[in-house]
């Protein structure tokens, strides 16, 4: 297989902002909407995806010479399912509270498109180091996406940030006459509203950015 394609560092950086899974590729939207009402569940989900993506990308890259084109998706799914099940059992044993909160969303990481997309786009074609850096970069991008949404939802919905783990209160509990928490932010509609608004902000920044770049080239 050809070795050209983005280098390890390019892959890593691309995953974080330019090809951000949440805001640019718009992949993995099911967990993005479902588990972002607290920072704890968002970080647990991001950590699970990091583990599964790194393991399956590295393994896929190692066996890429043996893959038969028409059986590759089967191998990807098998690999991902095995690592997701390991992560699911691990959470049930060592982080039982989070395992209960996330419920079916951990097993559902198996069908998270980000992971199978990285196996197909990067790991099946490039070396182990590149695949590893790609997995870490994409996972960090996914983590940023989840954190941005969860930050807004948890602060507006509960008045806290990392409330269950660190107990940080952002909005003082003693001022109910000035502020009451927005229950809608905890419920599913809050996820759609937040994601939609953030996506709009991201597109607006991008549009402004490219307009300025265009003006600069015209002027030059």
């Amino acid at each position, binding site marked *: 297989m050809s070795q050209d394609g983005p280098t390890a560092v390019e892959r890593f950086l691309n995953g974080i902002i330019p090809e951000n899974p949440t805001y640019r590729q718009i992949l993995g939207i099911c967990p993005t909407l479902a588990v972002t009402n607290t920072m704890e569940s968002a970080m647990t989900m991001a950590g699970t995806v990091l583990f599964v993506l790194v393991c399956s990308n590295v393994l896929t890259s190692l066996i890429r010479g*043996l*893959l038969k084109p028409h*059986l590759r998706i089967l*191998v990807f799914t098998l690999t991902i399912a*095995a690592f997701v099940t390991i992560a699911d*059992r691990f959470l049930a044993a060592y982080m039982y509270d989070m395992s209960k909160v996330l419920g079916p969303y951990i097993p559902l990481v198996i069908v998270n498109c980000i992971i199978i997309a990285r196996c197909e786009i990067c790991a099946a074609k490039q070396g182990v180091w590149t695949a590893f850096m790609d997995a870490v970069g994409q996972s960090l991008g996914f983590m940023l996406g989840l954190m941005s949404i969860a930050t807004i939802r948890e602060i507006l919905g509960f008045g806290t940030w990392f409330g269950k783990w660190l107990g940080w209160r952002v909005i003082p509990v003693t001022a109910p006459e000035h502020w009451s928490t927005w229950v809608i932010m905890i419920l599913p509609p809050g996820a759609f509203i937040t994601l939609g608004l953030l996506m709009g902000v991201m597109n607006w920044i991008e549009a402004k950015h490219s307009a300025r770049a265009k003006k600069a080239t015209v002027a030059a």
Partner: protein
Amino acid sequence: MKNSYIGQAWLVIVLSLVFGAALAGVQAALKPRIEQNKLNDTLGQIPSLVPGATTGQAETIGGQTVYRALNDQGEQVGWMIPARGLGFADVLDLLVGLNKDLSRVTGLSVLEQKETPGLGDRITEPRWRDQFKGKPTIPDLVVTKTAPKSDSEIQGVTGATISSVSVAGIVNGAVARLREGLRE
């Protein structure tokens, strides 16, 4: 060989076997811990369902698993029964707290339900569940549509008669089975 089925699929077969073995290993290693977590979760409910109790001890009586609710000194102060039965939409999983001689209900909690949102799922609200606290177990609890007139009546959730009747029925059945089991 190259074009035979095995020649094409050997990688899938090998990976399946390797992953299968790895998952079996993980499951075997972590299972005791996971079971312990689940047990602690159930035991953690006992203090809120049986006044004075701090922990519990599992036992099988009359074909169902029940917990003797124990206080700090290890004396039995009541019972907790994990009971399940059919609700309106799906299976209801309840925990029922009882005093020591099974004469009164001391608490009720809903572990799992998929009743109609906004109607049937109001059986999980403390205001409704708290009606069960202190109710006698003989005669059977009955659900009414109006404010309860006698001690053994529970006012049903408006618009969710079936969910309400199911909960009362599951409680009655669980208590009856335990009483029957203890008599043997």
